[in-house]
């Protein structure tokens, strides 16, 4: 019996080969998209789960300022006084700033992005695999440094790195005492170098705040098994003020929550976008539903087409059980087949996950255990739905109507089909709108006035304790194609100094750029009021941006001082606000201090029009001459700001990609719908043509309904898309507006797609020779 049903099912699928391939292919693609997004979701949800103790590891943060960097000395306090704490470590993490690790003996150097400063406890808490070490603890001395295997290979080649000296950007000097394996890939932080933070020189941050000067750091605690984090929090907050650590209240966050928490804790740890993730999940579900609808329509209509066959089987003595078994088997074959294709497609696409999601998805055995049942469940659910629907439809007819090929109660059947189609169209229109808004926002962000002239503006990073700073400036200015150049400590995109200024309630943090001469000219920053720096002003004056003036609540800057050091800096002018962070955050208060800049870390160069490549070559040659052994690190300001949107761009690209899949699936739905309509109306079309209807009239008759449905879908989609995009734009400090034309255009596009799809089939139906279509009936 099973063999018999299998044969029938296979031959039936093969009979309508093109339709079957179309539907199953569409379903497989939809399913692959669903699996991919599912894996992405799983991967995002399990960030930091690679650390075995992640359930017990918590990060403390400054709850008042929502900042992860807190006083280093809290570490020792936690280790001693709290019963819940098993272990504690500081975790000073730097990323995004390029530091250079050097092996001075072999003259090898490499850029290092991820640097940690912590204590021996870190290795225990995070279960870091130390492959080689000098003694039983990774850090046995103050200048101890652990490095990753790949870095060891780059710097020391085949030699044994243990005990060797390491120079980090000329200001931190250590000895390699341990080699570690890479940290788990799916984590919020990485480590190429881990330094011993017992050594104060290895603490990378320093702050002046609340009358204190201290090294801020992230602090992670491992709680004892079963210990309640809230009780630790309560105990901490009771006493925290008495320790004068510049913290009013502490918050606590599990290691695995850092990535997707909606709390915007300022820290260097990678941060996911929970809202975007929600969008992805919604899209995944929509794609799954869209492709299921297509499949459902397909299997129901297939059963209709086979009504005669079923009738014959019933006369031959088939019981309901046999028929149900048969339908179930045919649907299962189709779905399982699609599922296998989808799995293969997913497996092929997985290596490109970095391009699709901007993140590599690692899929291991344990991930299979946790996601497998979900996917299997979905498959089973789809099989059940797709078998039950035709069974339900068939159960309403008796044998004689089967044998006469009766196609069911047309009105009723088509109403449910229409609803499904309208749903598909609604989803498509909403997705098209969303994609358009996303691109509009990206375009807006790209073309927003940054407040300074980013065109052909070059940034050269100067190494720490660089001896030839002034010579470099002069040589650069001597080059014919340099319009002007300027030294500074800090620049848009890299602010190193922050000070707390003002008093009481009006106190706020101000960002600081220490700039040399020609700063405003080179950067193209507009002076709104007052004057630029004059020669005698050095180390005495500063400029504020509009925001700083506003936060100070000064109406006039005359005679005011920026009080961040002894004597302070006299404010001589106000500059227009300019972006020195991404568009995600509003412009903060900023002061530009006129300085000799012996500690300059950036040389900004405004280049004249001309061949940029040639200009760069000359600059590079000059750099080689002045600073042998130092790598030439440069970037253009506009690239730098572009790269801040890299994440958004990648996300929008992948959203677009999945939206396209959804739209294609909808097209298939439309196609299937018009296909069936034409089939049902073959005779009607033939009769109309015999009676003198023109092709255009027949097409108009067939297309009219679709216009109506697109219109209904448009009305439904607008509020949904508006709400979703309104929410998404809240992520940005500077956002584009949701213009009406975006919605109109999306509706227009959907209408166009629908009509083109419909016309393709309706034209064929309308031009068919009526003799042929009438003979069939």
């Amino acid at each position, binding site marked *: *019996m099973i063999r018999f049903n299998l044969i*029938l099912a296979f031959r039936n699928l093969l009979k309508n080969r093109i339709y079957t391939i179309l539907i199953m292919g569409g379903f497989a693609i939809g399913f692959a998209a669903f699996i991919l997004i599912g894996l992405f979701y799983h991967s995002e949800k399990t960030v930091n789960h690679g650390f075995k103790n992640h359930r017990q590891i918590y990060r403390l943060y400054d709850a008042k300022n929502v900042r992860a960097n807190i006083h280093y000395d809290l570490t020792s306090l936690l280790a001693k006084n709290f019963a819940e704490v098993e272990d504690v470590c500081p975790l000073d993490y730097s990323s995004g700033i390029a530091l250079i690790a050097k092996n001075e003996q072999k003259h090898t150097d490499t850029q290092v992005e991820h640097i940690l400063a912590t204590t021996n406890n870190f290795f225990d808490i995070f279960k870091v695999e130390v492959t080689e070490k000098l003694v039983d603890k990774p850090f046995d001395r103050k200048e101890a440094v652990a490095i990753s295997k790949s870095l060891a290979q780059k710097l020391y080649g085949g030699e044994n790195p243990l005990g060797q000296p390491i120079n980090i950007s000329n200001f931190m000097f250590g000895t390699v005492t341990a080699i570690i394996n890479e940290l788990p890939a799916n984590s919020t932080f990485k480590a190429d170098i881990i330094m011993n933070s017992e050594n104060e020189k290895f603490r990378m941050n320093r702050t002046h705040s609340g009358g204190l000067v201290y090294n801020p750091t992230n602090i992670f605690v491992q709680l004892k098994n079963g210990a309640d984090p809230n009780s630790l929090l309560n105990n901490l907050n009771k006493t925290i003020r008495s320790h004068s650590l510049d913290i009013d209240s502490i918050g606590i966050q599990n290691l695995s929550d850092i990535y997707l928490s909606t709390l915007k804790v300022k820290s260097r740890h990678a941060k996911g976008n929970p809202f975007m993730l929600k969008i992805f999940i919604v899209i995944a579900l929509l794609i799954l539903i869209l492709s299921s609808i297509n499949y459902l329509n397909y299997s129901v209509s297939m059963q209709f087409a086979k009504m005669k066959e079923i*009738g*014959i089987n*019933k006369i*031959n*003595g088939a019981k309901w059980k046999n028929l149900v078994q048969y339908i179930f088997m045919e649907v299962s074959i189709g779905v399982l087949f699609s599922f296998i294709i989808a799995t293969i497609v997913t497996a092929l696409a997985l290596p490109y996950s970095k391009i699709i999601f901007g993140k590599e998805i690692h899929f291991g055995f344990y991930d299979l255990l946790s996601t497998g049942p979900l996917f299997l469940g979905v498959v089973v659910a789809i099989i059940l739905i797709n078998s039950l629907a035709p069974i339900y439809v068939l159960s309403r007819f008796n044998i004689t109507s089967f044998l006469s090929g009766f196609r069911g109660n047309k009105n009723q059947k088509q109403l449910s089909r229409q609803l499904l189609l309208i749903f598909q169209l609604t989803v498509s229109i909403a997705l098209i709108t969303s994609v358009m808004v996303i691109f509009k926002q990206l375009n807006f962000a790209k073309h927003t006035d940054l407040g300074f002239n980013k065109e052909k503006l070059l940034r050269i990073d100067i190494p720490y304790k660089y001896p030839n700073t002034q010579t470099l400036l002069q040589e650069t200015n001597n080059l014919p194609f340099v319009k002007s150049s300027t030294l500074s400590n800090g620049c848009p995109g890299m602010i190193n100094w922050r000070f707390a200024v003002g008093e009481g309630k009006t106190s706020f943090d101000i960002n600081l750029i220490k700039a040399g001469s020609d700063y405003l000219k080179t950067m193209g920053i507009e002076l709104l009021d007052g004057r630029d720096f004059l020669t005698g002003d050095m180390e005495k004056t500063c400029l504020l941006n509009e925001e700083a003036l506003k936060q100070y609540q000064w109406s006039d800057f005359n005679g005011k001082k920026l009080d961040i050091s002894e004597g302070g800096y006299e404010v001589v002018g106000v500059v227009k606000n300019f972006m020195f962070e991404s568009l995600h955050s509003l412009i903060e208060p900023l002061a530009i201090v006129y300085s000799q800049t012996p500690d300059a870390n950036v040389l900004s160069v405004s280049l004249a029009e001309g061949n940029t490549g040639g200009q760069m070559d000359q600059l590079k040659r000059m750099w080689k001459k002045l600073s042998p052994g130092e790598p030439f690190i440069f970037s253009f300001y506009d690239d730098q700001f572009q790269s801040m949107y890299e994440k958004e761009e990648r996300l929008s690209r992948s959203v677009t990609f999945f939206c396209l899949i959804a739209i294609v699936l909808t097209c298939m739905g439309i196609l299937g719908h018009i296909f069936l309509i034409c089939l049902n109306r073959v005779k009607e079309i033939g009769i109309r043509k015999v009676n003198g209807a023109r092709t255009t009239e027949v097409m108009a008759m067939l297309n009219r309904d679709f216009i109506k449905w697109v219109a209904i879908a448009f009305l439904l989609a607008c509020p949904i898309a508006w709400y979703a995009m309104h929410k998404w734009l809240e992520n940005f400090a500077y956002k584009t507006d949701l213009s009406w034309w975006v919605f109109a255009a999306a509706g227009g596009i959907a209408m166009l797609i629908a009509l083109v799809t419909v016309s393709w089939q309706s034209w064929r139906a309308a031009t068919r020779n009526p003799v042929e279509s009438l003979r069939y009936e």
Partner: protein
Amino acid sequence: MITLKNICKYFDNKYNRTFILKNVDLTVAEGEFISIMGPSGAGKSTLLNIIGLLEEPSEGEYYFLDQPVHKLKEKQKTDYHRDYIGFIFQAYHLIEELTVYENIETPLVYKGLKTKERQAMVADLLDRFNIVAKKDLFPQQLSGGQQQMVGIARAIAGKPRLLLADEPTGNLHTDQGRMIMEMLKQLNEEGMTIIQVTHNEEFAKYAHRIVRMADGLLFDESKTKTASAV
């Protein structure tokens, strides 16, 4: 074997009742061969469907093998299809996705017979109908007469006691039609009860008895004959 008493089939419209069958009485004995004749719309096919348990009468009683069929449930009717009744259609109604062999096998599969038994029985039938060479072909590769042969083979594969034929020769030309009728006659001689609907006077005469229908009413020719003789 079959007793119909006062069978009516009608549809109710808003104002009037349209009769398709009106007070039909018919008795068929085991081993009989009956032809039902009449113009289009007389209700022949409906009557056959009712006898074949494909449709239910609106009124009246129907006894099949002394069982009151009008009281049977859907599931029991399937059992009757499986064990007692075979069908032949004007349009053959073969399953296009199955080969000749598999088509004949269908009722045996539903009967739950083992593969070995099925093979033996299908082989017998192929042999008997002279279509052994065609067993792996699909229906559309056969001529109409051959397709109807397969249809008959399938109908009798389950060894039914009653064979219902709805215009079995309607789509065939005369030679093929004669071949089919010879086959039916032979089956009848072996003891099978056959009821056929036909338009063809010549083919109707293969039956022992002809009943004529018009406008839902049934006139039993044999009875009228007897009446006129008296």
